[in-house]
């Protein structure tokens, strides 16, 4: 077996697994299991990126999607304690819309694949250019921090503003003093500890 067929086999596995997990995402009844199937999609997609020699993209894909975004989904779903969704009703309502969107996406897929085969890949950043930069990490660094530095910096400032905004919204001071049932456990313990400390310093107060 030469390396060409080996790569094709690996690609076939990754692609099939991607589709299978994607189907599981919408077919499984338990939302937590759906989210885990989505993790499966993300992992196999990262595998395809590695086959395309885009290792940085693969690692970033796993860190951002699997490591952050889907974990957030999971947290939300675990805390909301969603039940098992009725399968029949879910598909019944969405079917016409899904068919239309699916048809459009499939058409786009056919057009893009056809164009890639007939015209070839477009753009200045060809595989040869990336190899000339010394690898995809270096190439990405060149593009992000030299060619598109200003848009990159603007995007960073926007993201920072969004993070600060989210914290400010979440940390709004409550109007009235909170009862102990509204406090976090740590906060409640800390308050109790403070109280105990002041009592120790004040010998007049009876224990």
């Amino acid at each position, binding site marked *: 077996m*030469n*390396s060409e067929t080996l790569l094709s086999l690996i690609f076939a596995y990754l692609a099939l697994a991607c589709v299978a997990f994607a189907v599981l995402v919408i077919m499984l009844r*338990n939302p*937590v*299991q759906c989210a*885990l199937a989505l*993790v499966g999609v993300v992992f196999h997609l990262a595998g395809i990126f590695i086959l395309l020699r885009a*290792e*940085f993209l*693969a*690692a*970033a894909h*796993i*860190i951002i999607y*699997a*490591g*952050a975004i889907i*974990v957030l989904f*999971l*947290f939300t779903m*675990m805390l909301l304690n969603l039940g098992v969704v009725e399968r029949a009703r879910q598909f019944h309502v969405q079917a016409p819309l899904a068919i239309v969107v699916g048809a459009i996406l499939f058409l786009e897929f056919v057009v893009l694949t056809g164009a890639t085969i007939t015209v070839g890949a477009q753009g200045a950043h060809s595989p040869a250019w990336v190899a000339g930069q010394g*690898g*995809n*990490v270096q190439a990405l660094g060149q593009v992000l921090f030299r060619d598109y530095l200003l848009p990159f910096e603007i995007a960073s400032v926007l993201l920072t503003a969004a993070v600060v905004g989210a914290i400010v919204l979440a940390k709004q001071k409550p109007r009235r003093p909170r009862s102990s049932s509204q406090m*976090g*456990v*740590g*906060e409640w*313990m*800390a308050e109790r500890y403070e109280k105990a400390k002041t009592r120790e310093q004040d010998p007049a107060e009876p224990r």
Partner: protein
Amino acid sequence: MTELVIAVIVKSLIAFAIPLLVVPPLIWGERRILGRIQSRIGPNRVGPFGAFQTLADAVKLLGKEDMIPAGADRALFILAPFLLFVPSFMAWSVVPIGTELHIFGRVIGLYPTDLNVGLLYILALTSVSVYGIVMAGWASNSKYALLGSLRSSAQMISYEIMLGLALVGVVVLAGSLSLPEIVRQQQVPYAIPLIIGTFVFVCAALAETNRAPFDLPEAETELVSGYHVEYSGWRFSFFFLAEYANMLLASFLVSAVFLGGGWPAQFLEPYIGHLWATLLALFFMVSKVFLFLFFYFWLRATLPRFRYDQMMNFCWKVLLPLGLLNLAVATVLKLTVYA
């Protein structure tokens, strides 16, 4: 082609064998050292100096009844230990124990693979191991396990960021994400110029591996343990094994990335020859790993456990500013000393 395949298989086996073979003596060593520090003897009955204690414990764990709680999500309950165990072993495929060995006219890399995004790969796998914790807590269908898993996953997600932030400084100085390249670049171990980053990394690594003083899942008496409270027998041992494999991984990472791997053996190469210098480098690397592991045990015996809110405050109010400061220091150094 065949030669390449054989080399890959041998290296993969070695990479897989390191954590599996080192962890049992490690557990025994930890218990002996803890015993010494706490003025007691530690395990001393099974085998010479109690060296087979871990083996006996493993047999005990395997022989225990395998319990799955009623109302648990069976599939996820079974899957969860593996979700934690598999990433911690996958990470070993990029860990270098040295740089290159030139022998019999060929070059043997003393690392399983030289992945050009090695550091990111390790960070990706640490971020994925959160799933094992979340799933273990959720699938157990127990409020204590669920609370424990929320606590632990919040801890892991927060400290993971600090882990990455500390490594950014190293990446800036080395100009590479590949671990062997980072080792090669260190004329002086990065722990000296990036002392702040080293501190941040060590703290974050302690928290990521759930070790003292961040070992909230170990707190049986006050927090009813953690995400693995419903697990027993060999399923529990998987959590245990993953924790120690992660600990060993963190020690290898600190030694390779911050302590210069086999430094300073490479300077002796002109005097004692390549082979001896490589062997000496391996010796230095392994010594650093074991020194760091000893540091782990020492901390466990010495420090009290953080309260949950103290732990979170420490992460976001101490480590985050320090990590940013480290990045600033690294940038300045890159433009001046390392230019």
